């Protein structure tokens, strides 16, 4: 079974926010909310500074606390590629999933349900990439099956140093950042 994930090359990302705009357009994300965003992290001491720019979103964790804490089963892992999704009609909006996410990736949609990145599952089901991946002008984002050793994402993870966000939280994120 496929295990979808993303690999983002922080050496190529310039933080242009095209991915943010593409996501909002593709998914009709309401004004004032974001399913993905840009984080710029500066580490070190002048003049030895290191800067990393990351396009962040729901990490579609392999051990998703938002799914286990959901009292109605609205938050679930999709059969296709282990993508973490929310069934809007089952969500009572208790906000437990928001509190359980170490990445603060979820928000309450103005229509009253928990919302977040879906990895554009409606596009992926048609064999397409998520909108953010296709629109990236520096081609820094890669989408694919992490369980397939011949996929581009698997090859990149084998050949390049990488990290995930807050690994200490124990959620096993499926979004990887190349260093």
């Amino acid at each position, binding site marked *: 079974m496929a295990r979808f994930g993303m690999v983002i090359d922080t050496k190529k990302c310039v933080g242009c*926010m095209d991915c*943010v705009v593409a996501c909002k357009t593709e998914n009709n994300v309401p004004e*004032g*909310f*974001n399913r993905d*965003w*840009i*984080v*710029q*992290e*500066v*580490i*070190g*001491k*002048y003049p030895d*500074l290191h800067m990393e720019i990351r396009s*962040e979103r729901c990490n579609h964790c392999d051990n998703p*606390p938002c799914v*286990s*804490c*959901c*009292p*109605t*089963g*609205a938050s679930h892992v999709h059969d296709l590629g282990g993508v973490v999704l929310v069934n809007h*009609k*089952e*969500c*009572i*909006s*208790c*906000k*437990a999933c*928001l*509190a*359980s*996410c*170490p990445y*603060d990736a*979820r*928000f*309450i949609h103005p229509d*009253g*349900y928990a919302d977040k990145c879906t990895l554009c599952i409606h596009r992926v089901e048609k064999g397409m990439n998520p909108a953010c991946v296709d629109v990236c002008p520096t081609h820094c984002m890669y989408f694919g099956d992490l369980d397939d050793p011949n996929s581009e994402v698997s090859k990149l993870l084998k050949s390049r140093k990488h990290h995930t*966000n*807050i690994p*200490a*939280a*124990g959620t096993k994120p499926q979004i990887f950042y190349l260093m």
Partner: protein
Amino acid sequence: MNELTNTRNNLMIDPSMNVWGWEIPVYLFLGGFVAGMMIISGYFLFKGRNKETNCSCFYLPLISFVLLSAGMFTLFLDLEHKLYFWRLYTTFKIASPMSWGAWILILIYPILFVNILLRPPGFLLKKIQRLNSISEKMNAHPYLVKNIGVISMLAGAVLGIYTGVLLSSLGARPLWNTSILWVLFLVSGLSSAAAFVHMIAKDVYERELLAKADNGFLTLEIFVIILMITGLLTSSEAHIQAAELILSGPFAASFWVFVVTVGIIIPLFIQLLAVNHKIKHTPIAPIMVIAGGLILRFVIVSAGQYSHWSHEFFK
């Protein structure tokens, strides 16, 4: 230097999480308060005090019924998808403490109702006169009454424990992610309930007993707080940062002044004087204990939402 710049500005999420407002702390407090009253009422039934005319075990279940309903109403108010609340009862998710809680709350009601049947209030008796004969039959069986007491104590303990587990299971918030939180909430619920019964009890023996018990609960609460902070300070960087939120951070003043000093130390001192007959019993101390219990939930819920694994968020 480790500086983060984030373009995200989601409502209730940024700059720090604030998804649960006043409703959840009030609900957690009322849940713990009712749990404490059920344990106290159950204990009196177990001890056979239902033979006493003024036993608080006769009116505590009705008060619990009203307060638990108020707590469930605040929970309902917190939901953004209010009309979908019934979905909680279409499934049971074993890994979700909130699902457990929803079903525990439903199980508490029949237990409270059986307790109420032991001496139904006047307005119920006027409407349903058969209740009187049911009550007489129940009270004629001491073992049945004792068993109702034991079940009430167990159900109260489960309810009190659940209010803490609900938060401590959310590993993303380091301040909540401590396995002793349920002990703190249970002891705090017991001390608030003991203070309340101490304040309203008609029976002198019960008033004295619960003032003494409350002193014990308050002393225990201090130890539990010390253990919780010690546990956090000896854990990961994120947990140390979380402990500092209530030790020296933005929540320190409300925690040490209102929860510890006003809610525990001063009433403990007053009640120690009262049980040693140095001063008369006063409602001031119980009111302080109850207010302290409520503020404890507000501080823990607010500070917990503020705590984060990525400690750059604290800067």
